[in-house]
């Protein structure tokens, strides 16, 4: 009988102990989840705050970042999928700003490319037409009328006739040339003698079968 009582008491104790262990474990698990939730919420809030700061700084232009760096930051924030109306509003504004700046940067890069291309062409032309440009400069630099006239006669031998047309570009915009009133090579060479200055560069020449110039295009420097 004593043995039976002992056995049932031990059983009850075991059940209580087991129940206590189970309860304790459940409570600990619940608090860990809560902590994790709280931590995640805090991290999200911090991320939202950081996103707002970053986006505002990009909008104000105070980041000091390059356009690419700004775009990377924007893409990172976008990947967070933050569901916050203020962040969404800022993202829309930043997206528009970056698009505008990228378009402007592309336009400037294209302009620079065209300028470089033009400069390279001009340099190549200068080399190509060096002897002709030199001949014109020498006429302009002649100290006497006789000296200038002699050089004019020499230079005219490069042309098919003294009436060869000379076109002078005064401005170039998007591949379109604005010209001064056309003149002839005879008049132009005398003009150089009178002005004592050569402020042009040869842009193009046309030649006949004998290699004589039949049309000259100059550009104002």
């Amino acid at each position, binding site marked *: 009988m004593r043995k039976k009582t002992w056995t049932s008491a031990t059983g009850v104790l075991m059940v209580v102990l087991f129940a206590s262990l189970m309860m304790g474990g459940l409570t600990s698990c619940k608090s860990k989840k809560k902590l994790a939730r709280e931590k995640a919420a805090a991290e999200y809030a911090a991320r939202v705050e950081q996103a707002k700061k970053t986006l505002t700084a990009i909008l104000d232009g105070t980041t000091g970042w390059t356009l690419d760096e700004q775009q990377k930051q924007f893409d990172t924030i976008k990947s967070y999928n933050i569901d916050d109306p203020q962040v969404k509003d800022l993202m829309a504004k930043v997206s528009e700003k970056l698009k505008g700046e990228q378009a402007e940067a592309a336009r400037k890069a294209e302009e620079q490319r065209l300028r470089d291309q033009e400069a390279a062409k001009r340099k190549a032309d200068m080399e190509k037409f060096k002897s002709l440009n030199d001949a014109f400069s020498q006429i302009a630099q002649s100290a006497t009328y006789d000296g200038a006239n002699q050089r004019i006669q020499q230079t005219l031998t490069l042309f098919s006739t003294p009436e060869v047309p000379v076109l002078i570009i005064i401005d170039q915009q998007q591949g379109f040339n604005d*010209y001064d009133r056309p003149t002839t090579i005879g008049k132009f060479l005398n003009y150089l003698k009178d002005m004592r200055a050569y402020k042009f560069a040869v842009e193009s020449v046309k030649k006949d079968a004998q290699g004589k110039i039949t049309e000259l295009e100059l550009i104002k420097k």
Partner: protein
Amino acid sequence: MKKVAPVLLFLFVFMSAGPLLAQDNLSPARKQAIDSLALEKVRDLSKYITIIGSKTTPWSEANRVIDRADELFMPGSQMGVSSLLHPKIQYYTVRKYFERLMRLNYNKVEIEWYKINYVSDLQRQPDGTYVGVITIFQKFKAYDKEGRLLYQDTTKKDITVYVKRKQTQIQGRMIGFWDVLLGDIRVKETSK
């Protein structure tokens, strides 16, 4: 329908005229190029006048330069001539002025133009011509054979400039160009 027709007509006329109006509005860069071109023509004239007036210029060269200088002007343009010795301003056609200048009865003549600037910007007229006024200051000095200064004055002159878009055929193709022509040159004031 009767009310809609005038509106449609207006829209049609407006849209047809659009491209023409757009062509009339020169970009600032093109306008600047034309402004510079007109100033350059006045500077060219200044050099030509110095050459024509100079007693060291050979006769044949002076006559050739007169032809070039004359080509800068609208037909019939006049040049005002003043003197501290005569109160009245005389006006001559530009060719007559150049010929008189070449024959001035001094041993040495120095003519210098300076402060060449727009006094009135080029403005587009209804016929498409751009008209402006450029002012210049002319320093005139005349010497005898001993090199003594016999006469000098400084004259402020206004030059009307006309710039028009024209076309010409060069070796079978049409070339558009800006034609700058100078008009009357009027004396504004003369001083010692």
